[in-house]
């Protein structure tokens, strides 16, 4: 049984429809990457899974075999889906440690604690009492990941981890991924950098204009297939 499944997911903002029947499934322990250009609906997909947006039909999203499409975000995180939001969004008036503690607000049991997050990202431990706004972009991204891990999710959604960061910083952040997977956490990452996405994932979905245009294992896809799925040309 897949951990997460979307069945022809339709969603959007008010009258503006952004997702036109997205179907995907993720097994426990897998890392899935979703690639696609700006406006393809990747962020909308993650927002809908995490509950910030409502799908057209509540049954469009199933987690652990039950539909979660009608739940509020705070109920969804309690079931084990945590998101690293686009743009990182640290709480500006909280220091690093309080940001992490907010991640653990729902008190799910699991392997991740403040100490474990500080092991994964030692710089956060060094700067635990710094205001989150004083961190560099890369450190803020680590904070955002650590904050989501504090919810001890079964499924971790990561939206554009590399957005606006220098390549060397991106490398550091992706270096943490194996440590997260080692805890058995399933991951769904949205990434514009195709090489990063392929290197980090077991399976890739490509989106274009609110639909899935390609699905497969990184090793089994050709450049031409990807180009067609990504740009439609």
């Amino acid at each position: 049984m897949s951990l997460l499944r979307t069945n022809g997911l339709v969603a959007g903002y008010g009258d503006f429809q952004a997702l036109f029947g997205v179907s995907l499934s993720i097994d426990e322990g897998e890392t899935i990457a979703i690639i696609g250009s700006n406006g393809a609906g990747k962020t909308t997909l993650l927002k809908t899974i995490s509950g910030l947006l409502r799908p057209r039909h509540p049954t469009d999203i199933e987690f652990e075999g039950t539909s979660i499409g009608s739940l509020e975000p705070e109920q969804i995180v309690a079931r084990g889906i945590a998101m690293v939001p686009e743009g990182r969004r640290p709480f500006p008036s909280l220091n690093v440690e309080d940001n992490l503690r907010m991640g653990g607000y729902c008190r799910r049991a699991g392997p991740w604690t403040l100490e474990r997050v500080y092991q994964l990202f030692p710089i956060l431990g060094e700067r635990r009492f710094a205001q989150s706004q004083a961190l560099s972009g890369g450190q803020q991204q680590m904070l955002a990941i650590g904050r989501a891990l504090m919810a001890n999710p079964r499924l971790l959604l990561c939206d554009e981890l590399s957005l606006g960061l220098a390549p060397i910083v991106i490398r550091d952040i992706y270096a943490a991924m194996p440590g997260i997977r080692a805890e058995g956490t399933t991951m769904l990452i949205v990434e514009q950098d195709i090489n990063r996405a392929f290197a980090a994932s077991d399976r890739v979905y490509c989106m274009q204009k609110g639909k899935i245009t390609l699905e497969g294992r990184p090793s089994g896809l050709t450049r031409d297939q990807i180009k067609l799925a990504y740009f439609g040309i």
Partner: protein
Amino acid sequence: MYWINTVVQGALVGGLYALFATGLSLMFGVMRIINLAHGDFIVMSAYLAVVVMGLLGVDPLSSLAIVVPVMFGIGYVLQRGLLNFTLGGDILRPLLVTFGLSVVIQNGLLELFSADSRRLQLPWLETASVRIGDQLAIGLMPATVFVVAVVVIAALELLLYWTTLGRAFRATADDSDTARLYGVNNRYIYAMATAIALGVVSIAGVLFGIRTIFDPTIGPARLLYAFEVVIIGGLGSLWGTLIGGVILGVAQAVGAAFDPSWDTLAGHVVFLLILLVRPQGLIPKTVGL
């Protein structure tokens, strides 16, 4: 000596103004709601104390044991049942709804208690004072009010900075959507913020009722003081609120010392001056609480 006395008395009254303002500041900080019925909740608390004192035969301070929890509960229900539905869209909506509440509360109180002025009697505290030197005496009542204000503000600081609930308040104030992603039920957080705000307001209302006479229509003027205090102190800073209260209190006392009819005017003038010179307030906090 006369002036020292004036300033001290004014500063002590400032504690009461700070208490008026903290609830307003808390609701604005967490939800960006400006509660126009805030002053009427102050008056309503004083009338609630009248009822509790009448029913149980207790003094005003003891009535707090009932008035505070009742107002806390009213705050919770008010937010969950009404004000939550005004959030998330136009900022005019909560303004209009709380303005309506203000009218309803004033007229409700008028209907129930008539337009007669009331006072919460507490003779032993009202008249007691401590002499310091020949010409300076500090009334026990104003001193008590000031101490209560400091204690309440310190307690709120502890709550905001050292508890899970406080962390959730600050996170929700920063970014309510992201807070929800980590399990914060913002409808509950908002209800707790209003509950705590009205709990603090009820303490202010009862102390106010002991200090001076009140009738159902004086709420809006208290709201005005609360606004001025919040803006003088700096939005979202609780200790700034205490300083703002003291400044307003001293300004009124000094104004009244020149001419008794100048007290309110002097307060407004000082407020306007500070708004001109330091529009961000004395201790501003731009983000969150």
